[in-house]
């Protein structure tokens, strides 16, 4: 029997959504299943994301809309999987779709039923802090926008009373007779992405979780959110007053073996810091303390965020875990903690306590695991191996996101893409067999006369809290050719996309302007909406009144409103001159180039090749293997050769992978789909052609010269230690001292290198097991995050001594004596060491600079490559067709690098799966009548797009030959440099023509000219 070219994804949070989009874009049918009424998962509940403080809803909302609109994705919601049979390639799933008591195809989401419903229920979306109705929409931007009746609380369904929703529903969507329904699906592969559920603090009575002013971090997230129960005002639940003293208690339901939760949840420290910063932004008078065991700020940009919290926002961090929350006789809350500076036990009164609750596996994971025959580890995560983080013990079933172990959003997204690569490799032969092309309605011809629609977005209170949105709406109505203007709470929500389509159709609009956030994130969403409305997408214009206005003039409401009007006027002025643009198709070289033959590069190359596409794998060293060649043991106790040897073998023997060692990319030209490069193998040149490139150039261990006497004979790095542990010490040590953060988290290298704590405890355990030596680890924060907390416990139980030092008083190394000011004891300790091991950070290779130049991709301050978006595009560059993975992006553990590599492979396969791709519509065109053939454009263009050709000119009575410029649409990138240099104004870059820019400039002073 053949395989089925469809994949079932169970869990529609950000991991599942990402998998679904990559698979669907790559030519597979996807069933996206969730037991909830909506997609979006936990991310949709967040206010902002760390460390960039992006508005979570703003970045996830376009993904929700994209998933729900995708022709190859079927959303199967409010449904539970009841049975699974079959094997890899051919699974049969049975599901039970619960009755919503609302017909999905009839409900318009108008919300009148919700208004009239008399029954109130605690609102899960606001973590129980407010009430919703028995008929409800999970949250305002919920996708799909269909109501659901909560059968347990509906008066009609429980007592046959009321029935008001049915009466008021003009669409006739309410159906009390609706029954649960069975669904059967045939799929080739299954991806499990069931995420987590926040730990329930009721298990820890000592923290008084039932006290109204003791809330969870999830509840605080909702309080901070503009769409939350207090509209973003920091108010305590008991009396609705603003608190002054807020205390976060970390590790509630994490790092606590007494309640069966010994793992670290990985994200709570950053979540607490983020919430503390946002709270301070809302109310600068707040006094906030975060009680913690260690602050685990280990991800890209996290350490810098943590220092900002301390320095800029005055947030206090106390290393102490209060044992309980107490209430005094006057009813005031306080916590008892240990002040290490003074060596005293103290009380701190608090108005609001936030319990930083950990991530528990979601309840359905266990059920599904037994149904699917999956092993779970001691923490309840789906078991996987370091070298196969996305694969389960059951062939054809993959896992991604928090179900596989606690992790943050970018790691979850990378895994989501990665799982897609694994599933698509399995079903590569079935690519394209079950999909439909998205067919947009035929574009209608537009009349000369512009008819412009304007939508002004409140963005919750992000814009509306500063800019007088109704006034801007009214103002827009006065502008020439604007025939309709209205406001929206969230212009990007799905219902508003439908609204825009209806407006365009009903009011016969032929231009649309949205005044909201930035085109850099949301332009495409609205352009697609125009396409759905049978309008050319380039008849859309953005007016950025959030990033460029409400957010930067928060205390000048009137000026901000005036500026918003100006911005809208300029947008409308330009939109008057917009014209429909069309694209053309160019062939794609369906081959990838992967640069870097370490674990990430090799994994990525294999995944792409297993998806059916040829790969050039280029490594500058003579051998494949990268940094891992210098590591000898893995966190799970295996040898690193156990994973690297088979990987190299698979890469070398793969028929579709061509390996070039001792080789560098010397030259590059072209663009996505059509790159041409020159490889240089010690002087021998190879010309190659490829469609996408992946940068996986890895990182090196810092040579810690200048730190702790490095260079002396008894001082080595962790990598040196790995080698000695494998091949024997010159002289077996008796006293080993490890110094963490040697050259990291310092002003010259402010980042945390993420892996060194895990590396150190791994090696400390090995020393303990293999020798008789004593081991001391001097640390600032032990960042053994996630499941690797178990190594920290193991090391402690084996007698490894952990001593905490502070940034201000680092250890001092003199000959063989290490003096450390131990924070717990509050005194200096001298240790005689015969071996000092420095945990030095990973650093970016200097050669990144060259590669960045070749590909025109950015690097961050620390020399690592900078991804397109810190949260949702972790493996892509802003430049299409160029991807990244592994430690080239930032330091990370092996399994994390592998997951990213698979993620980058998924992105590569999406592009490579098409024989031809569409060119940009926004390219430059030449008006031959005006062109004088001077050739300036040819000289100016870096892409060789314009060429001079000889044409016959027929001017009145004379016919003569003349040179004219022609621009190749496949090579033009639309930068417009040629137009700015053309002496006769013959070149127009579409979308940014001279008249369009001129119109915006004119409108700046108040005049909107209408096209003649």
């Amino acid at each position, binding site marked *: 029997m053949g395989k089925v070219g469809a994949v079932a994804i169970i869990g529609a949070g950000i991991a599942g959504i990402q998998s679904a989009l990559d698979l669907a874009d790559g030519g597979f049918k996807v069933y996206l299943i969730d037991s909830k009424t909506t997609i979006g998962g936990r991310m949709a509940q967040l206010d902002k994301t760390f460390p960039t403080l992006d508005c979570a809803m703003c970045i996830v909302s376009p993904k929700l809309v994209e998933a729900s609109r995708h022709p190859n994705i079927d959303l199967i919601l409010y449904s539970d999987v009841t049975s699974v049979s079959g094997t890899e390639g051919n699974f049969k799933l049975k599901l039970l779709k619960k009755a919503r008591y609302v017909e999905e195809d009839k409900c318009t989401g108008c919300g009148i039923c919700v208004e009239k419903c008399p029954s109130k229920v605690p609102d899960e979306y606001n973590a129980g802090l407010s009430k919703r109705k028995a008929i409800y929409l999970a949250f305002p931007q919920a996708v799909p926008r269909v109501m659901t009746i909560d059968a347990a609380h509906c008066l009609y369904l429980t007592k046959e009373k009321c029935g008001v929703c049915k009466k008021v529903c003009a669409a006739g969507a309410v159906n009390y007779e609706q029954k649960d329904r069975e669904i059967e699906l045939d799929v080739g592969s299954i991806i499990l992405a069931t995420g987590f559920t926040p730990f329930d603090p009721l298990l820890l009575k000592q923290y008084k979780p039932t006290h109204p002013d003791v809330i969870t971090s999830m509840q605080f997230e909702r309080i901070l959110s503009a769409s939350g129960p207090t509209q973003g005002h920091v108010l305590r639940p008991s009396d609705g007053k603003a608190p002054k003293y807020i205390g976060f208690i970390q590790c509630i339901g994490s790092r606590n073996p007494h309640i069966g939760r010994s793992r670290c949840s990985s994200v709570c420290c950053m979540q607490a810091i983020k919430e503390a910063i946002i709270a301070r*932004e809302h109310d600068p008078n707040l006094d906030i303390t975060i009680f913690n065991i260690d602050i685990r700020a280990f991800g890209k940009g996290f350490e810098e965020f943590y220092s900002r919290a301390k320095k800029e926002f005055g947030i206090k961090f106390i290393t102490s875990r209060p044992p309980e929350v107490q209430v005094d006789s006057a009813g005031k809350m306080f916590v008892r903690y240990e002040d290490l500076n003074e060596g005293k036990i103290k009380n701190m009164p608090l108005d609001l306590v936030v319990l930083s609750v950990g991530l528990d596996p979601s309840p359905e994971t266990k059920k599904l695991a037994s149904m699917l025959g999956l092993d779970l580890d001691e923490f309840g995560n789906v078991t996987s191996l370091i070298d196969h983080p996305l694969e389960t013990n059951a062939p054809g079933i993959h896992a991604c996101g928090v179900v596989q172990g606690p992790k943050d959003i970018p790691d979850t997204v990378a895994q989501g893409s990665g799982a897609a690569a694994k599933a698509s490799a399995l079903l590569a032969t079935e690519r394209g067999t079950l999909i439909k092309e998205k067919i947009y309605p035929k574009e209608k011809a537009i009349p000369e006369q512009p008819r412009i629609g304007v939508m002004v977005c409140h963005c919750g209170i992000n814009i509306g809290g500063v800019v007088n949105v109704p006034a801007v709406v009214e103002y827009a109505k006065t502008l020439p050719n604007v025939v309709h203007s209205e406001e929206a709470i969230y212009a990007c929500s799905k219902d508003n996309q439908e609204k825009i389509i209806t407006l365009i159709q009903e009011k016969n609009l032929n231009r649309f302007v949205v005044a909201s956030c930035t085109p850099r994130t949301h332009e495409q969403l609205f352009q697609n909406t125009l396409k759905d409305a049978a309008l050319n997408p380039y008849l859309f214009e953005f007016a950025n009144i959030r990033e460029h206005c409400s957010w930067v003039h*928060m205390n000048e409401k009137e000026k901000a409103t005036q*500026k918003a009007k*100006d911005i809208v006027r300029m947008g409308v002025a330009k939109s008057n001159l917009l014209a429909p643009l069309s694209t053309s198709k160019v062939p794609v070289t369906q081959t990838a180039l992967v640069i870097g033959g370490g674990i990430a590069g090799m994994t990525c190359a294999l995944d792409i090749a297993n998806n059916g596409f040829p790969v050039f794998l280029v490594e500058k060293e003579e051998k494949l293997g990268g940094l891992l060649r210098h590591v000898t043991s893995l966190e799970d106790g295996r040898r690193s050769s156990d994973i690297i040897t088979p990987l190299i073998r698979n890469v070398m023997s793969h028929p579709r992978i061509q390996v070039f060692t001792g080789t560098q990319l010397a030259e590059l030209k072209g663009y996505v789909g059509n790159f041409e490069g020159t490889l240089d193998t010690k002087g021998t040149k190879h010309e190659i052609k490829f469609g996408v490139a992946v940068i996986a150039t890895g990182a090196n261990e810092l040579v810690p010269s200048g730190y702790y006497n490095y260079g002396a004979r008894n001082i080595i790095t962790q990598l040196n230690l790995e080698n000695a542990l494998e091949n024997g010490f010159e002289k077996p040590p008796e006293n080993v001292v490890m110094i963490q953060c040697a050259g990291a988290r310092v002003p010259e290298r402010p980042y945390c290198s993420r892996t060194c704590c895990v590396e150190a405890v791994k090696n400390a355990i090995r020393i303990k097991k293999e020798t008789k030596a004593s081991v001391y680890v001097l640390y600032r924060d032990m960042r053994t995050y996630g499941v690797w907390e178990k190594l920290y416990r193991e090391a402690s139980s084996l007698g490894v001594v952990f001593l905490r030092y502070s940034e201000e008083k680092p250890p001092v190394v003199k000959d063989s004596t290490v003096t450390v000011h131990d924070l717990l004891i509050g005194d200096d300790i001298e240790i005689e060491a015969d071996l000092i091991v420095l945990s030095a950070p990973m650093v970016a290779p200097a050669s990144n600079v060259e590669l960045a130049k070749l590909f025109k991709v950015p690097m961050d301050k620390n020399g690592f490559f900078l991804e397109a978006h810190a949260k949702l595009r972790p493996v892509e560059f802003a430049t299409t067709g160029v991807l990244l993975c592994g430690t080239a992006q930032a330091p990370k553990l092996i399994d994390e690098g592998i997951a990213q590599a698979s993620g980058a492979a998924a992105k590569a396969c999406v592009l490579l799966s098409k024989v031809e791709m569409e060119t940009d519509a926004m390219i430059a065109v030449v008006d031959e009548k005006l062109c004088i053939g001077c050739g300036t454009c040819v000289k100016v263009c870096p892409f060789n797009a314009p060429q001079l050709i000889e044409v016959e000119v027929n001017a009145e009575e004379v016919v003569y030959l003349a040179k004219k410029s022609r621009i190749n649409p496949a090579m033009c990138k639309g*930068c417009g440099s040629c*137009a*700015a240099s053309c002496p006769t104004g013959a070149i127009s870059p579409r979308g940014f023509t*001279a008249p369009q820019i001129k119109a915006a400039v004119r409108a*700046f*002073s108040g005049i909107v000219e209408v096209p003649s």
Partner: protein
Amino acid sequence: MSESTVPQAKTNGWEPKIVAFCCNWCSYGGADSAGMGRFQQPASTRIIRVMCSGRIDPLHVFNAFLEGADAVLVTGCHIGDCHYVNGNDKTKIKYKYLESVVQQLGIEKERLQLNWISASEGEKFANFIRDVTEQIKKLGPSPLKPEGVV
């Protein structure tokens, strides 16, 4: 001819009006980052987005002055970072020419400024706007400002 609602006060509390040309990939992103980081700045500036600073035609800059801009900012990616290889190098050349013309027209040099701002430099963007606004406030309205435009 103007429909602006800003009161006609050219002395006290007068706010300059500034046009900033920003490239899509860097300085426009920098302005976005300023927003994301909530870096507050005077409400003096109106941004015109182009794909690359190389698109900025000197004519657009003159136009902005003729429409009443008190200052015009030409911004783009840092040299070497242009998304289109070297658009900003070309901007630099055109800018030299612009500077000389602006001088000949007798406009103070502060009214035309060039700055390279990356997509992550939100604070730099905000500081730049604040500094320019301060400088222009001292200079007062542009001599090229047409009658009736504030």
